[in-house]
Structures are given as structure tokens and as C-alpha cells.
């Protein structure tokens, strides 16, 4: 029983970080029909921006985080949207898929060549102290991860639902043509979405790197899980990605423990196939607002 609880709690803690990556992923899809195959690398890279800030530039850690966030929002948000995605938008999905795959390789290689090929330790925001709950060990980090993710997601929901800019962004996602007529600057809203994605990725990076260590090759598994979470939860719902992330975190743990550690990833993969075939809009998603 305590094992089961332990698996659930650990799964929720990492799942909440997956959710952050998955949410950015769904936001990009909604705003510009971009499937970002480099999403995992978007989570991997900010940790190195922060490390550059703290180790190379000698900034105190909290300021280094701010520095990393700014660099990430500029490069992974602004530059990525303007120079890479925008020119390809009129040409459908495939070129974007290929370009983001190549971009993922490029980012990995850049980090490896210009920072380090080796894993790096990364300071934790929360203490690694633990306490017991019914035999399961919970660390402050677990709680912190869940709390930070929850706050970020709630803030995002409020921003999208309660502010003028947020509503304009939603209008853009649902129907860019109509939004344009209503006087929304569609391109700017799409740009904001890309920047929010970069910010969420940075947050995920800060939370995940103390546990996973910062390494150039970390993007691949994280990206894969983000896709899974987004699809399972529903591509057009922020809430969906949250539920998807938590669910994948837990199912991954359970399938490793109770199915077979050799077939571990099969659990989430089979779930993915079943969801796509039976409920392609995802568990919480509604039928696609925009059909292509």
C-alpha cells in the first residue's frame, strides 16, 4: 500500500512538471497549428541559460533565473516564431515537423559543443528534506513542484480568461479570421503564445533540472512525455494538458512497477493509441474548434 502511494505521489510530482511542458505544447498548437518536436529541448535549454548566468556571468542564482527566463523568452519565443515558424506557416504541418526535429538536434549540439557534453548539477529551489505519509516518502521538492505548477497553471487560466489580452489570444486560437475582423492583432497574439510557451518551458526546466540533472540529451524523453500528456489530456485545453501530465506521470510509474520495467513505456504508449482511436480530442478536450 505504501508502495502504491509512493508511486502515485512521485508520479504526480514529475507529472506536474510534464504538464508545464505539455501546456506550452498545446498553446502552440492552438495558436498556430505548430507541432513543436523540439519541445523537450525547449525545456532542456533554459537550464543552461541559467547556468551560464550563474556560473559564467557570476550572477546570484535568483537573478540568473531571471536572466535565463529573459533569454529563453527572446530566443525560444520571439526568434523561434519570427525566423522559423512564421515563414513555414502557409505550407502545412510537415515542414514544421521536420524543421523542429532539426532544430532539436541543433539545440542539443549547441549545448554539447559550447557548454558541456556532461551532465551538470543544478541547484534546487526547494530543500530535499523529506517526511513520511502512510509509509510513503514525500520531499519538500515534490510538494514544491506540484504547488509551483499549480500556481502557474491557475495564473495562466486567469490570464487567458480574465484579461483583454488573454481573451484576444483565445479568440485568435479559436478563429483567427474572426479575431482579425474584431480588431485583434493576430500575429502579435500568436507571438505572445510563443513567449508564454518559452516561459513555461523555463519554469519546467528550473523544476526538473535539480532532479534530472541538466544535460544536452535530456530533451528527448521530456519532449516525448509532453506529447503524450498533451494528446491524452486533449490538445485544445489547458486543463487537459494538466490532467494528461499528471496521468502520464502516474501511469508511467505504475506500469514500471506492476506491468514490467522492460515494457515500461509500453503502458503510456498503449494508452496513447487507445485515446487517439477512441477519443481523439483527448480526455478533457472538446472536438476540434478548428479543422484543417
Amino acid at each position, binding site marked *: 500500500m505504501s508502495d502504491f502511494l509512493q508511486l502515485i505521489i512521485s508520479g504526480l510530482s514529475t507529472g506536474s512538471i510534464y504538464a508545464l511542458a505539455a501546456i506550452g505544447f498545446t498553446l502552440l*498548437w492552438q495558436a498556430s497549428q505548430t*507541432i513543436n518536436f523540439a519541445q523537450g529541448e525547449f525545456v532542456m535549454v533554459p537550464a543552461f541559460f541559467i547556468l551560464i548566468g550563474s556560473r559564467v556571468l557570476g550572477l546570484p542564482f535568483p537573478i540568473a533565473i531571471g536572466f535565463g527566463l529573459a533569454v529563453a523568452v527572446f530566443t525560444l519565443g520571439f526568434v523561434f516564431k519570427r*525566423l*522559423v515558424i512564421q*515563414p*513555414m506557416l502557409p*505550407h*502545412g*504541418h*510537415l*515542414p*514544421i*515537423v*521536420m*524543421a523542429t*526535429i*532539426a*532544430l532539436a*538536434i*541543433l539545440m542539443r*549540439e*549547441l549545448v554539447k*559543443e559550447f557548454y558541456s557534453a556532461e551532465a551538470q548539477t543544478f541547484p534546487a529551489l526547494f530543500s530535499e528534506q523529506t517526511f513520511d505519509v502512510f509509509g510513503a516518502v514525500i520531499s519538500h521538492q515534490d510538494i514544491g513542484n506540484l504547488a509551483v505548477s499549480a500556481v502557474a497553471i491557475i495564473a495562466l487560466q486567469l490570464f487567458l480568461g480574465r484579461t483583454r489580452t488573454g481573451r484576444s489570444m483565445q479568440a485568435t486560437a479559436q478563429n483567427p479570421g474572426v479575431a482579425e475582423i474584431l480588431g485583434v492583432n493576430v500575429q502579435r497574439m500568436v507571438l505572445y503564445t510563443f513567449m508564454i510557451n518559452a516561459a513555461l518551458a523555463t519554469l519546467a526546466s528550473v523544476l526538473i533540472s535539480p532532479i534530472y540533472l541538466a544535460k544536452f540529451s535530456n530533451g528527448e524523453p521530456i519532449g516525448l512525455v509532453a*506529447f503524450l500528456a498533451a*494528446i491524452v489530456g486533449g490538445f485544445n485545453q489547458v486543463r487537459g494538458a494538466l490532467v494528461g501530465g499528471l496521468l502520464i506521470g502516474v501511469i508511467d510509474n505504475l506500469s514500471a512497477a506492476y506491468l514490467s520495467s*522492460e*515494457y515500461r*513505456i*509500453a503502458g503510456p*504508449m*498503449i494508452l*496513447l*493509441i487507445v485515446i*487517439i*482511436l477512441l477519443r*481523439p480530442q483527448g480526455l478533457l478536450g472538446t472536438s476540434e474548434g478548428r479543422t*484543417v
Partner: protein
Amino acid sequence: MKQLKILGLVAILAGLIIAPFTQATYGTYVLSSWLVFTVAAMGLNLTLGYAGQISLAQAAFMGIGAYSTALMTMAGLPWIASVVVGMGLCFVVGLILGYPALRVQNHFLAFVTLAFTTLAFLVMRNEEWLTGGIYGLVGVPRPSVAGLSLMDGTRYYFFTLGVFILASLSFWWLVNSPWGRAFKGLRENPIRANSLGVDTRLVTLLAFAIGAAYGGLSGALMAPLVQYIDPMSFTLIISLKILLMVVVGGSGYFFGPFLGAGLVIMLPEFLRFAEAYYLMIYAALVVFLMVVCPSGLLGLLSRGIAAIRSREPAERGDLKEGAQL
């Protein structure tokens, strides 16, 4: 124009026949692996380029073909029998994998096929009794033709070239037959195609199954080439590599995969001077290509040709009439 094309083809063929004699063993090996990957990319070009169904499962089909060949030829059965079984198996699995495509499209389909590739990898790695597990199968024999052993690299190259030419000719036949037109119809406008009597359900499944069979053939050629197969050769990365070949070359163009596979396999050679940076340069080139020309290199070429043609000051009365309509 047509003579020029035929002349070009003859020149390429002559080049391919002479090539191994100018090469050290390594060069011949690289050329052979280009041929093998082109066959796989050709198959994906049918599924994706002609029929418009994205698939990230091509490496898994190569795996099915390669394991069939390895297991059967190591048990003493002839290569040709293993090809029939391998391709047949891929065809059937391709039909099954095509079913999701009847329900979902685009990225959903990409993820279903991605999941399939991952599951196939897990089976290849974990089912040691059948596949040799992570160690794979070592010592896959190369076939003999008419009593002539193909253990020598150059001989096997010619064998591969022969199979490759047969595969290309069948592919040419297929995409230029009414079936090819039906595949394109499915890609361009499935609803319209259906209303014109094209059984889009069947055509979708066939596009997957035939593409998969080409993947199987490619695997059947690869196992004896490398003489060793292991699950790591059939992972998602390899699927993405094949996808890259198709898209970079020009998806939906007959020669797209030929060019794309050539680039993906040979470019690291050309960029060797860049040493540790070559993968970086390579990735940057792909991003750049996709940004400036999403239809791939052949798309760029045909756009160039069209631009030159339209500059010809031909007297085209039809343009006036066209403008009027």
C-alpha cells in the same frame, strides 16, 4: 527535355555501375546503404508523399523485414523466401496500422505510428527467445545468386543495385498507374476523390501496406549488408531519419527519396571537415531548407524550372482567354 531526362538516367545508372570500382570498401558500403535506405524512403514516399498519410513507422517495418530475413536465412532458408515472408508480414501489419488513419489525421496519425515504432522496438529488445534481445542477431549470411557467393562487398552492392532497380521500376509503374492517381487524389482531396468512386478507405490502407512492404524489402536488404541486426537500428530516430530523407529530397516527387537518402547518408561525409560541428551545420541546413523551401530540394528545382519557363516570351493566347474566364 525527355531525351535529356533519359540521358540523365542512363548517366546515373552508368555511374552507379562504375562507382564501386572507383571506391574503397567503405565507399561501396556507403553506396549500398544509400540504396537500402532509398528503398525504405521510397515506401514512405508512397504513404506520405503520394497518399498524404504521415507515418513514423518506417523503421519498424525495416525491422520486421530485417528480422524475418535474419531469422530465416540463419535457419538455412533462401533469402528470396525470407523477402516474401518479410514483405508479406509488413504488408499485413501495414494494413492494420492503416486503420487508425481512417479515423485520425496529421499529428494524431504521427503519434499512433510513433507509438507503434516504440512498441515494435520494445518487442525486438525484450523478446530475447525470438530476436536475440538487445544483442541482436549476429552473422546474417549474404545470399548467393546462381551459386555465386555475395560475401564480397562489391558483389553484394550489385545485388542490392539489382533489387533497387527492380523496386524503383515497380514503384515507377505503380505511381504512374491509375492507382498512383488515386493515391494523389486521396492526398489532395479525399472527400472529392470518394465522391468520384475512389474507395478512399481501401486506398488509405493500401498506401500504408505497400509503403510498409517497401520498408520490409529495405530491411531484408539491410540485414545481409550489415550482417548483424539489433533493435537499436530500428528505433524512432531511424524513422525520423527516413522521414527526413523523403521531405528534404521532395515528398511526392519520384526522385525525392533518392536525392534525400543520398544527402542524409552522404552529407556527414561532405561535412566531415567541420568535425564536431557537422551535426550542427547539418541540422541548421535542414531548418534553413524547410524555411525557404518546404517542398524539398526537388520542389525548389521544379519551382526554378517553372520560373525560367514562365519568363519565355511565348505567345499564349490562352492567357487572355483564361483571364477573362
